[in-house]
C-alpha cells in the first residue's frame, strides 16, 4: 500500500499512531513492510493456504463473532446432500467434467435447491463470458427460502462444511506450504481475531495483484470469508478494501469498456442464453429472487432508452434486437491471439500500452504487427505505437518494418487537466474534474474523438437502409453545440431522466420498466440528484463528519460503506458505542447514522417477509446483505463461482512445488490457451520443472506507473528509478554468481529479459516442504520508449487466466536467472528455444 498507494497509506499511519497494529503479508519486504509492526513473508501463489489456515484457526478455536455470523451470514444454511468436497475428491468438488474442465454446480446448492444450480454447459459459458464480473453490484442468483440450523450443529450446515473443508489447513501445513514460521502465522491469527468483535474491527486491504492469479477471485473470497466470520463487514474500520491502480478503473468497470458487460453490470447478451429480450431480463432479475436486482427490467430498459431514445419502444423491445451478441470469450487475451491469427482488422488503444503492460508482451506486439490498422491515443509516444520500428521483435528479426502491413495512427490525447469529467476512484467515489486549460496542438479528449468519430460514421450511414446500420443511425448522439462535447450532458444521460417531465432522476428506485425513464448506468443514478452535479461537491473534509458525505458522490446512493446495516446488531442497535455507524431509530421509525443506510429507510429490524414474497419485499429486517439473493454474506457460495463454492489451495499454473494437499495440482477450471506461442513452464511433479527453478513475481514501484507511459517519460520520476532491475536474496545471488549492480537475465518459456541485479535481504529464501525455494522480484514498468528504457517483465509471462473473470496469472510464475546479459538479435530466440527444448515444451522439429 505504501508502495503503490502512498497517499492512501496516510490513513494506515494515522491508525498506527492511534494504536492500531499493522501486519503486512507479502512475498518481499516492501516500503509497506518497513512501516508495519509485523512483516510476514509468504511464498507467491500460496495465499489461500495461508488464509485458509486463518479460517481453520477461527473455526477450530470458535473465535468467530457468533451473533454476527448467525444473523448476517449463511453459516446456518444447509447444503445439498449431494455436495462433495475437495477433501473427499482429492482437490475437486462434486460435478466436475474433465472434458470441459467445468463443473455441474447443482450439487453445490443449498438443500432442496439443487435444480437451481448451474449446469456444466452454463458453467462453461459463464467462464467464457467472465460472468462473475456481473456480481460487482449484486450477488449471483439464489432462491430466497433455505432450510437452516441455527445451532450450527447439523453436519450439512455451511459452518460445519466450512470447518471440515479447512480442517487440514493447520499451522504446520501453512508453514510447509507458505514458508511462514508457525509463530508468525499464529501471531497474525491471534491479532486478527483479538481485534474483531463488538468493540473493534479489522480492515483487510489488498492491492489488485491479488486478482492476477489463476485463483484470483478465490483469493479475495478467502479474505471475505474471514472478514465475515469475524464480523468485520459493513462496519467502520472493517471491510475488504481493494486498492485499484488506475484513476478511473472502477469507473471503467461500472460503465464498462469490457466485452461482457453493459453499464451497471448488466450482462452483454449471449446469443444462446439471452436470445430474446425476456430471456435477457429474466436472466438478470431471477424472478423468484430477493433483493433489488428484481427491478432489473427498469434498469435495462432505462439504459436502452438512453442509447436509443425515442427509437426504443415497447414494440421493438426498446431496441434489444440491435445489441450485439457474445458467443464466448472475447476478452483482451483472446483478441490478441486472434490478431496473431489474422482475425482482427483494427485496434484502438486508449491510454493503454499492452506492448509493456499486458501479459506476454511478445504476443501483444506480434498481434499488433498483424493488423490492418491501429489507432493509438496517448499523451506520449509509447511502445505500443512503435512496435513496428523499435520493438524487441525488430531486433530479433521477427518484425521487419518493410514487411509489416499495420497502418498506425498516433492521435495525441488530452490530459486530465485539459478536459472535464468524472473519475471513479477505488471506493466507488465519483469526483468531477474542472478543466484547467485547452489541450495542446492536435491533442483531444476521448470524448471529442469518439463523439466526432461517431458523427462521421453516422454521416456516412445517413442514407443506409441496411438493418445492421439502424442501431448506429438511431443512437442519441447530441452532446451540445460546441466542438468539444459537453461532459455534463453525458453525465446527465448517465444519471437518467424522467422522460415525461424531463427532470433528472434522484435515485434508481425511480426507474421504470415501461420506457418512461432513461438512465445510462443505473448504479450512477443520483449523481445528478436535484439537478446538481453531486460529483462536483467539494465541501472541505475539515468542515464535515469523518465520513465526509458532501465530498464527491459515491455509488450507490452516495453510500460510503456498503452493507452498513451490519454495523448494527439484528435489533438495529449499534454493536457498541465505539463502533456505531448506522442504526435503527425506533422513535422516528427509520434507519439513521453517519452514512446513508444501506437498507430501506423505514423497514424495521423486526420485519419478516410474508410467505412467498420476492424482490425487495422479501428482504427481512435483518438481511444486511441486501443485494445477495438470500440477504446473507456468503461463507459458502452455492453459485456464482466457476471454480468451487469454497476457496481451495491450488498451486499456480507454473509451480515447482507439488500441491501437498491434493492430487489436483492447479485450478482445474483455469482458462488456458493451449498454443505453441503460449507455452507454460512445466510444473511439479514433472521433473523438468527444474529447468525453471525459481519463483518470480512482479509489481509496481512508487516512482513509476504501470507500463511507464506516464512516468518513464518524466525526468523527475525517471531519475528516481532509472533502470530495470531484479531483486534477489544474497543466498540466490551466491547460488547463481550474481553481483550487485551487475547484469542478470531471467528466462521463461516465453522470453528472456535482462536487468541489473539488486541483492537485498528484503528477499529471503523460504523453506517449503523441506527444501529451499528462492523467489525473485521485478518491477514491470520498463520498455523501449521514454527518458529511461529497459526490458519488460511482462514479456516473461504467459497467458493463463482466472476462470471467473478472465484475468491473467501474472503475479507468480517460474523462471531461471543467470548472470550476465541476455543474447541480442536472433540469438535471443535460439537461446529461449534451448530452454524450451530442455523443458520438453518443444522438440527438435519445432513442435
Amino acid at each position: 500500500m505504501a508502495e503503490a498507494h502512498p497517499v492512501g497509506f496516510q490513513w494506515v499511519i494515522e491508525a498506527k499512531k492511534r494504536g492500531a497494529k499493522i501486519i503486512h503479508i507479502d512475498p518481499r519486504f516492501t516500503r509497506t513492510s518497513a512501516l508495519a509492526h509485523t512483516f510476514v513473508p509468504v511464498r507467491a501463489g500460496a495465499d489461500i493456504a495461508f488464509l485458509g489456515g486463518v479460517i481453520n484457526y477461527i473455526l477450530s478455536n470458535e473465535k468467530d463473532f457468533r451473533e454476527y455470523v448467525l444473523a448476517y451470514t449463511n453459516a446456518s444454511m444447509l447444503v445439498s446432500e449431494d455436495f462433495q468436497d475437495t477433501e473427499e475428491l482429492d482437490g475437486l468438488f462434486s460435478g466436475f467434467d474433465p472434458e470441459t474442465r467445468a463443473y455441474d454446480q447443482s450439487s453445490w446448492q443449498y438443500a432442496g435447491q439443487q435444480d437451481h444450480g448451474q449446469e456444466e454447459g452454463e458453467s462453461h459459458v459463464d467462464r467464457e463470458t467472465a460472468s462473475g464480473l456481473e456480481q460487482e453490484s449484486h450477488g449471483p442468483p439464489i432462491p430466497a427460502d433455505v432450510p437452516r440450523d441455527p445451532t450450527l450443529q447439523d453436519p450439512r450446515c455451511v459452518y460445519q462444511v466450512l470447518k471440515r473443508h479447512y480442517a487440514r489447513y493447520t499451522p504446520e501445513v501453512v508453514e510447509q506450504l507458505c514458508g511462514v514460521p508457525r509463530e508468525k502465522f499464529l501471531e497474525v491469527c491471534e491479532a486478527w481475531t483479538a481485534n474483531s468483535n463488538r468493540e473493534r474491527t479489522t480492515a483487510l486491504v489488498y492491492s489488485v495483484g491479488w486478482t492476477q492469479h489463476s485463483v484470483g477471485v478465490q483469493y479475495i473470497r478467502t479474505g471475505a470469508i474471514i472478514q465475515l466470520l469475524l464480523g468485520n463487514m459493513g462496519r467502520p474500520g472493517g471491510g475488504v478494501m481493494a486498492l485499484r491502480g488506475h484513476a478511473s478503473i472502477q469507473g471503467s468497470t461500472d460503465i464498462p469498456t469490457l466485452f461482457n458487460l453493459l453499464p451497471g453490470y448488466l450482462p452483454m447478451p449471449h446469443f444462446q442464453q439471452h436470445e430474446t429480450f425476456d430471456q435477457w431480463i429474466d436472466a438478470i432479475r431471477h424472478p423468484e429472487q430477493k433483493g433489488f436486482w428484481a427491478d432489473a427490467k427498469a434498469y435495462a430498459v432505462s439504459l436502452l432508452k438512453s442509447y436509443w431514445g425515442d427509437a426504443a419502444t415497447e414494440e421493438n423491445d426498446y431496441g434489444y434486437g440491435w445489441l450485439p451478441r457474445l458467443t464466448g470469450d472475447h476478452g483482451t487475451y483472446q483478441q490478441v491471439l486472434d490478431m496473431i491469427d489474422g482475425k482482427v482488422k483494427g485496434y484502438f488503444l486508449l491510454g493503454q500500452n499492452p506492448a509493456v503492460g499486458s501479459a506476454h508482451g511478445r504476443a501483444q506486439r506480434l498481434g499488433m504487427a498483424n493488423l490492418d490498422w491501429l489507432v493509438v491515443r496517448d499523451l506520449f509516444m509509447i511502445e505500443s505505437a512503435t512496435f513496428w520500428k523499435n520493438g524487441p521483435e525488430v531486433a530479433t528479426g521477427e518484425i521487419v518494418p518493410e514487411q509489416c502491413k499495420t497502418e498506425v495512427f498516433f492521435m495525441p490525447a488530452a490530459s486530465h487537466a485539459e478536459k472535464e469529467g468524472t473519475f471513479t476512484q477505488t471506493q466507488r467515489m465519483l469526483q468531477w474534474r474542472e478543466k484547467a486549460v485547452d489541450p495542446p496542438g492536435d491533442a483531444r479528449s476521448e470524448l471529442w474523438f469518439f463523439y466526432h468519430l461517431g458523427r462521421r460514421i453516422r454521416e456516412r450511414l445517413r442514407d443506409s437502409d441496411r438493418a445492421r446500420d439502424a442501431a448506429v443511425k438511431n443512437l442519441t448522439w447530441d452532446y451540445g453545440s460546441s466542438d468539444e462535447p459537453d461532459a455534463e450532458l453525458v453525465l446527465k444521460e448517465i444519471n437518467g431522466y424522467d422522460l415525461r417531465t424531463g427532470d433528472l432522476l434522484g435515485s434508481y428506485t425511480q426507474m421504470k420498466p415501461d420506457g418512461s425513464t432513461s438512465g445510462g448506468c443505473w448504479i450512477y443514478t443520483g449523481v445528478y440528484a436535484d439537478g446538481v452535479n453531486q460529483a462536483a461537491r467539494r465541501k472541505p473534509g475539515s468542515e464535515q463528519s469523518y465520513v465526509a458525505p458532501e465530498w464527491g458522490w459515491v455509488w450507490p446512493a452516495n453510500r460510503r460503506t456498503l452493507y452498513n446495516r451490519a454495523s448494527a446488531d439484528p435489533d438495529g442497535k449499534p454493536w457498541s458505542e465505539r463502533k456505531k455507524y448506522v442504526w435503527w431509530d425506533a422513535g422516528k421509525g427509520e434507519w439513521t447514522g453517519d452514512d446513508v443506510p444501506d437498507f430501506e429507510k423505514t423497514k424495521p429490524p423486526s420485519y419478516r417477509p410474508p410467505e412467498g414474497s420476492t424482490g425487495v419485499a422479501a428482504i427481512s429486517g435483518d438481511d444486511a446483505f441486501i443485494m445477495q439473493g438470500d440477504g446473507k454474506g456468503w461463507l459458502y457460495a452455492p453459485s456464482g463461482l466457476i471454480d468451487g463454492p469454497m476457496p481451495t489451495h491450488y498451486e499456480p499454473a507454473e509451480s515447482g512445488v507439488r500441491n501437498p494437499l491434493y492430487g489436483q495440482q492447479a485450478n482445474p477450471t483455469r482458462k488456458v490457451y493451449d498454443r505453441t506461442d503460449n507455452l507454460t513452464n512445466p510444473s511439479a511433479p514433472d521433473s523438468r520443472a527444474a529447468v525453471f527453478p525459481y519463483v518470480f513475481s512482479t509489481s509496481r514501484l512508487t516512482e513509476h506507473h504501470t507500463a511507464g507511459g506516464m512516468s518513464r517519460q518524466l525526468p523527475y520520476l525517471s531519475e528516481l528509478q532509472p533502470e530495470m532491475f531484479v531483486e534477489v536474496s544474497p543466498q540466490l545471488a551466491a547460488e547463481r554468481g550474481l553481483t550487485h549492480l551487475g547484469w542478470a537475465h531471467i528466462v521463461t518459456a516465453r522470453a528472456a529479459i535482462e536487468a541489473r541485479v539488486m541483492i537485498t535481504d528484503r528477499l529471503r529464501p523460504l523453506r517449503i516442504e523441506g527444501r529451499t525455494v528462492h523467489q525473485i522480484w521485478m518491477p514491470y514498468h520498463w520498455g523501449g520508449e521514454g527518458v529511461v528504457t529497459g526490458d519488460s517483465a511482462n514479456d516473461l509471462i504467459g497467458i493463463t487466466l482466472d476462470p471467473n473473470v478472465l484475468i491473467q496469472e501474472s503475479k507468480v510464475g517460474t523462471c531461471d536467472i543467470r548472470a550476465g546479459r541476455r543474447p541480442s538479435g536472433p540469438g535471443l530466440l535460439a537461446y529461449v528455444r534451448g530452454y524450451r527444448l530442455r523443458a520438453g515444451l518443444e522438440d527438435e522439429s519445432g513442435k
Partner: protein
Amino acid sequence: MRTWIEGWPVYRQLTGTDPLGRGAAAKSDGSRALESRTETADRVAKSVCPYCAVGCGQRIFVKDEKVVQIEGDPDSPISRGRLCPKGSASKSLVTSDRRQQHVLYRRPYGTEWERLDLDTAMDMIADRVLAARDATWEESDADGRPLNRTLGISSLGGATLDNEENYIIKKLFTALGAIQIENQARI
C-alpha cells in the same frame, strides 16, 4: 540618487540593524520581489490526480493559459492535500515537451512517421472502422439466432479515462456491433 544609495547593500549594512550584512541588509531585489506563483495565478481548477485510484484532490494553477503548478487540494477528505511522487509530477506530465502534439501516421510497410492533418486522420479512421465492420459482419448464427456484430474491431483502454468518455465509447461501439472492447480491469 537617494534610492540608488539605499539600494546599495553596503549602505544598508552600515546604516541599518544588520551590521554583518547577513540578513535584512543583504536582501536582493530578486528576493524582495519574490511571490508564490500560486498567488499570482489567473485561476485554479479543482481536479483529481490521474495516476492511481486513490483519487487525491489536485489544484491546478493557471497563468496566461499555462499550467504553472499542480498541488494537493487540502480540502479533500481522501488526500488532505498530499500527493505521492507521481501526483507531485503531474505538472511535468501535463506540460512536458515530450508530449506529442501532432497526429502521426505510419503507412503500411512504412519505416518512418509522417505528419497527418487531424481532420484527414478522423475521416480515414471512420472509413476504416466501417470497412472492417462490413468485412467481418456477422448477422446471425447458423441457426438464425441474431449476432449483430463484428469481431474485426478491438479496443483496449478506459481505466485512465473519464466515465463520460467510457460511456460514449461503449455506446458507439455497441451500436456498431463491436464487442471486443476491453480495458485494464481485465489485466
